[in-house]
């Protein structure tokens, strides 16, 4: 099993998860990499992905586990990158004993974004703790929810660069919903297409 860490940037941000799955099969075939296939009437490559990222967000920390014999991580990365489009280039590759089951083990995602606003507003955002209510619409209904516990960490670097560590896994806080609320509460500005997932934090079976 090879675990590939790859990015999803530029125009690739707009490719849905299911289309990334299909695209990966094509990249591997172009690369001359030969993963094992499932059995059955419609055999498919044995590929396992970290949880889907929302359409439009960038990432430099997506993961794919590939069941493939007889190839070193170095070789895999080199061949993969020669066949991958710009927006889906590989960052690193390593061995794993078995399928790491990303979805079951993921605990949080870290998102990087620029926020523009008054010094006072940005300082307040930095200090959000414990209780924070957000309001959003889901399936046509307006939902208000305290997500304080789902915000694991807010880190500010320099004036405007923020890193939000948000819960993932069993309970998820979507960055677009949080940012929308910050806009309402603090009058800050941000650009969703420029939000990037920079890390995925895993639990005990952390594959990284």
């Amino acid at each position, binding site marked *: 099993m090879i675990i590939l860490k790859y990015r999803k940037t530029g125009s690739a941000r*707009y490719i849905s998860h299911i289309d990334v799955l*299909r695209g990966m099969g094509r990249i591997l*075939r172009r690369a001359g990499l030969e993963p094992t296939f499932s059995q059955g009437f419609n055999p498919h490559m044995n590929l396992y992905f970290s949880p889907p990222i929302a359409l439009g967000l960038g990432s430099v920390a997506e993961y794919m586990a590939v069941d493939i014999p007889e190839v070193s991580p170095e070789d895999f990365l080199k061949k993969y990158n020669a066949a991958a489009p710009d927006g889906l280039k590989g960052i690193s590759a390593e061995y794993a004993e078995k399928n790491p089951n990303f979805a079951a083990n993921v605990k949080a995602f870290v998102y990087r974004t620029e926020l523009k606003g008054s010094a006072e507003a940005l300082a307040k955002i930095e200090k959000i703790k414990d209780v924070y209510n957000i309001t959003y619409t889901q399936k046509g209904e307006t939902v208000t929810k305290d997500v304080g516990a789902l915000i694991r960490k807010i880190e500010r670097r320099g004036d405007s660069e923020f890193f939000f560590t948000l819960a993932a896994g069993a309970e998820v806080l979507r960055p677009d919903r949080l940012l929308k609320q910050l806009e309402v509460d603090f009058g800050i500005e941000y650009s969703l297409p420029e939000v990037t997932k920079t890390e995925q934090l895993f639990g005990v079976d952390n594959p990284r």
Partner: protein
Amino acid sequence: MPTLEQRINRILLNVEKPARYTGGEFNTPNMKKAQAHNKLALCFPDVYEIGMSNLGLSILYHAVNALPAWTAERCFAVKADMAREMNANGIPLFSLETKTPLREFDAIGFSLQYELLYTNVLYMLELAGIPFRAADRKNGNYPLIIAGGPCTVNPAPTEAFFDIVVVGEGENALVALANLIDEEKQKGFDRERVLERAECIQGVYAPARAHANNKCATSGVQNGDKTSSSGTRKRTVLKAVVEDLNGDKTSSSGTRKRTVLKATVEDLNKVFYPLKPLVPNIEIVHDRAVMELYRGCGSGCRFCQAGFYYRPLREKDAQTVINCSKAMIENTGFDELTMSSLSSGDYTHLLEAVEALKDFTDKKRVRIALPSLRLNSFDGRLADYTRKSSLTFAPEAGTQRLRDVINKNITDADIDNIGAMFEAGYRSVKLYFMLGLPTETDEDLDGIAEICRRLRALYVKTVGRKDVTISVSCSVFIPKPVTPFQWERQISVEEMRTKQYYLRNKLRDIKGVTFGWHDAETSELESVLARGDERLAAVIERAYADGCKFDGWTESFDFAKWQGAFQKVGVDMGDYTRAIPTDATLPWDFIDTGVDKSYLLAEREKGLRAEVTANCRDGCNGCGANKLGACLAGKL
């Protein structure tokens, strides 16, 4: 100021399937070539998923991008949600590759794949901020607007919108046109001179100059096809022939247009073929590598426009097909390879090519798809190489008599040939028929039900089970230009519905059969636009202004609006659906496809007598197309 790309990114999350509008596919050619100072936008007037499935567009895109002086970019019709966002944010229609407004291109090519896309051309022009009519673009430094694709076989209804119409196979003609534009730009672009010179390229028609003097004979023909040296002579000879025909009777312009000879590629082994096609990031309609096997068709089905329009019959060699197929799979990673042409089973080297590819495709886990097989061309051995899911065949008519009328040379015995496929493991058959064919009676519809019954019995007998599914799909016959049936009447919407209802009842009692049919109203409009003349430009404009677009999509087609547009402009649809006297001058008579009008007429008469014409592969039937190049490289 944010760039156009940044402004586009801000609206992308508000629309469905944003990847339709982003570009970024693997194998996108270099858009920053040092010497590329000319830009062509290739527009497909339907959505991304459909346009990206078109082989012609792929060929032209990569052929022009192979020219050092040019880059070609793509643009598709945007869905209503995207159009709303673009309009609200002042974003003009843009190209996918570099996000450049269409208005800034040197030339824009529209692919006219079928008649119901005509309003979408206006839709795209409007989003791009470009006037519809060529006459309104003379001043203002607008891009040259070019049309190509099968609908240019009858340019009359849309020619007012285009500066240049390319008739026939576009790859060499478009490259010649691109070279000419490049040359003229360096001298100081003069639109009139470009049109005048462009006319000398085989296949090029400049509507504004339809009646002007043509100087090609003296200035020398620039034939796009480098393998041909006889372009000048052909044009002169054909012109003389056409001028012998009867005087003008139907054209609203009063005088005859200069004859335009269709562009034809002579050697399919030497012609450009894209071995690094784009790999779409979202699922498209035909999401696979496409290998073209041959052009033209020897079957001579009398309703089929493609079968006559793409003559002469020219094949690629087995080795070309094998090499190109392998290269495409290696360059794209597609898991399916389709062997494409008008009737794949007729390809001389099909079994040889498929057998030679087997080891490669097995190792790569690639499926080979064989569409457009005719019943009588199916070789049971081929079943071993393709996926055993569903078979598709087109008997087109239910009785031997009607199949003889339309020259679909399939016998009942051929239909029994399907037994070989049942043995090979297929469990599902799709059958295509046409309703409203000339001379059709209820008996012919009964025949369709009879075929289903026979196939089911055959399956039960061969396989010993009853789990076969037969899906019957009925389209509506439309008399199309340059076919032997081009003079026939279009059946009315009411008659069509009666037939569909009748057949539905007949099929209802047969187990495992599903029935689907094509809408009669869209077919009626398609028929009118297909055989239309210059008067229809105003109707198309009116219909678009009244809200018609994406007319090929059931959910957006609005027949009442179209009827209203005809009424407002004062044009009777009936003028175009009724039978046309065979001695009338047709709006497309000035297009020379190579096939003689007298041949079409003779075929029509044979058809009405239920006499068949053999496949061209069995010997030349003398349609005339071989003056454009020998069929099967002279092996007939």
